[in-house]
């Protein structure tokens, strides 16, 4: 208990840092949850266009204009300068001009194309898709149908057909997205809390003179090291428990489901890996200022590279490849699988393999730690 008690007292002396890192996860995860729009609803918006019909006398041209009126917001602007201004100020996304003799040329199989001036942005692209869809159908039917009314009827039937879209997912996407946001941000705070505190505490206990004083004492040195390890593990468990409770407060009942348990298990495995990394770093007996700098570089660097702050899909292929060397990447991968997998059972092999990679990192850090501390002890 002597070692554990001193361990707690040293942690208490650094409690401000724990509060800061916890505050970071609350603020950033909280803000991201507020701005989250992954709520499963879809609302389509009509692009705003100007249609200039130079073939008013044609039924085909008038029908094309009507098709555009049904699918777009039609603006009323006249005069070249006003039209250019409207395009420049994005009041409209494009100007579609139906050329003279459009209807007659279509019936004659000349496949005329309407002229289009656009801003080149998303809405304009969507309008082009709408327009080309109509024109393509019109030209195909015009090859076989020579009667204008019949052609119009057939084209209208074809373009009015819509595909049925059914949302098959049973997932509560909204709450899972919140959980994903929370646990992704938690990776940074968790890593900071563990790395910073464990490295600082161990730098005190591993101080050469304090070690010497411990070795000459009647305390069994193996027992002493075991006490230190158990104290560290207890701290890690306490941090995991705290972040789980905080998660429940911020996310709600999602954490009480199987997926919630898997998020927490993933967090625990990641925490143990981080503890091993902290043990490895502490073997270098760095000064306390250097520890602060090093921990910031590791936590911020790996968080940015592995998709903690920015979704990993937004990152380049090169960065993604580099991210593989960090445990955080595998933690985030598991978090994403837990969030998006329709059938968790089917994704279990991926989850297990990612977890095994994290355990592999843990073993690697422990081996490296033993090697370095052995070398250091020999030099001392």
């Amino acid at each position: 208990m002597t070692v554990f008690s001193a361990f707690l007292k040293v942690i208490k002396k650094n409690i401000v840092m724990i509060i800061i890192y916890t505050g970071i996860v609350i603020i950033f995860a909280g803000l991201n949850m507020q701005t989250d729009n992954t709520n499963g609803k879809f609302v389509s918006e009509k692009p705003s266009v100007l249609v200039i019909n130079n073939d008013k006398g044609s039924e085909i041209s008038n029908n094309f204009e009507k098709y555009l009126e049904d699918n777009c917001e039609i603006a009323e602007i006249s005069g070249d300068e006003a039209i250019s201004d409207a395009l420049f100020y994005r009041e409209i996304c494009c100007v579609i001009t139906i050329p003279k003799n459009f209807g007659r040329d279509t019936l004659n199989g000349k496949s005329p194309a309407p002229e289009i001036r656009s801003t080149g942005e998303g809405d304009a692209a969507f309008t082009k898709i709408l327009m080309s869809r109509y024109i393509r159908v019109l030209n195909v039917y015009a090859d076989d149908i020579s009667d204008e009314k019949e052609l119009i009827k057939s084209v209208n039937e074809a373009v009015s057909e819509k595909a049925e879209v059914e949302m098959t997912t049973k997932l509560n996407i909204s709450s899972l997205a919140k959980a994903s946001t929370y646990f992704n941000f938690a990776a940074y705070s968790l890593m900071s809390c563990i790395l910073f505190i464990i490295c600082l505490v161990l730098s005190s206990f591993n101080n050469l003179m304090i070690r010497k004083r411990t070795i000459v004492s009647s305390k069994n040195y193996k027992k002493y090291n075991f006490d230190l390890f158990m104290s560290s593990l207890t701290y890690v468990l306490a941090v995991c428990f705290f972040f789980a409770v905080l998660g429940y407060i911020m996310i709600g009942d999602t954490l009480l489901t199987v997926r919630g348990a898997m998020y927490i298990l993933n967090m625990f495995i990641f925490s143990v890996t981080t503890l091993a990394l902290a043990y490895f770093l502490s073997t270098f007996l760095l000064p306390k200022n250097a520890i602060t700098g090093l921990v910031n570089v590791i936590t911020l660097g790996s968080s940015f590279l592995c998709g903690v702050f920015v979704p990993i899909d937004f990152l380049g292929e090169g960065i993604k490849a580099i991210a593989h060397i960090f445990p955080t990447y595998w933690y985030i991968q598991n978090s994403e699988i837990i969030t998006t997998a329709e059938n968790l059972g089917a994704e279990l092999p991926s989850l297990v393999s990612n977890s095994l990679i994290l355990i592999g990192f843990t073993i690697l850090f422990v081996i490296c730690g033993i090697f370095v501390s052995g070398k250091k002890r020999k030099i001392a």
Partner: protein
Amino acid sequence: MIKKIIEVNGLVKEYKQLRAVDGLSFDVYEKEIIGLLGPNGSGKSTTINSILSLLKYSEGSIKIFGKEMKPDAYDIKREIGVIFQEVAVFEELTVYDNIDYFCGLYIKDKKQRKHYVEDAINLVGIGDYKKFYPKQLSGGLLRRLNIACGIAHKPKLIFFDEPTVAVDPQSRNNILEGIKKLRDDGATILYTTHYMEEVEQICDRIIIIDKGKIIASGTSDSLKKLAKVGEKITVEIYKLNDSIIEEIKGLKHVINVTYDSNLMVVSYDGGKNNIADMIDFLRNNEISYNKIYSERPTLNDVFLEITGKELRD
């Protein structure tokens, strides 16, 4: 019969080509303060580290309390306290918590520990600083805390490795008095230092080592007898004739007289009232002088006599 607390026989420690300790043998007896004196690199720390099993030695044997000392000899370690030269405390713990922690490595019982910690705090005189953190303490107080951490569990054998380095005179006296009190309370003490005056002040016996070997040992007085030089009397005189110098050379026990920069230094090989005799001589010859003082031989003179070099080289 006086009990042997430490028995070192033929201790050898080699670092590749270097023989840091070369066949060292000595005993330390119960309730004595023994001083281990030697220049840097003489093998003092290697000897202590070997005794404490912090180092694996090449040859020889070490017994403490009659039992062989080994790294896992926890029953022996229970009775040993060590005060290292460098301060070894936690910056994050208060004075009280630091002492309690290090005492806790030996004593499990909380009540007993509390009592022991209070005793240690009182012994080194840091009662007013219990809730202070090490960073808030002066160098002297920090040294006292370092000592309290090493002796709180009331060990029977205590190693002090240069505990007064960079300590103010008040703290130094406090520390030395504390060490004497520990001896009076029944502890045996092995004390290493550079400061000869400290060794002379508190040690019952002195071992002088150089290049890993014991070159002399005994009490302060017996060691000083090894030096050929005796008392030195220095007199500040404005003007002195050669005839007077010759006359002084003829005085009893005088072995040499030098006169330079108005300072006359007279060396003796014995005699008890040399300074009184010199004052009488100066008065009888009507020689006026500003000041006169006497210097007894030091352990440095002994070391110089035996090795031909200064102790602090």
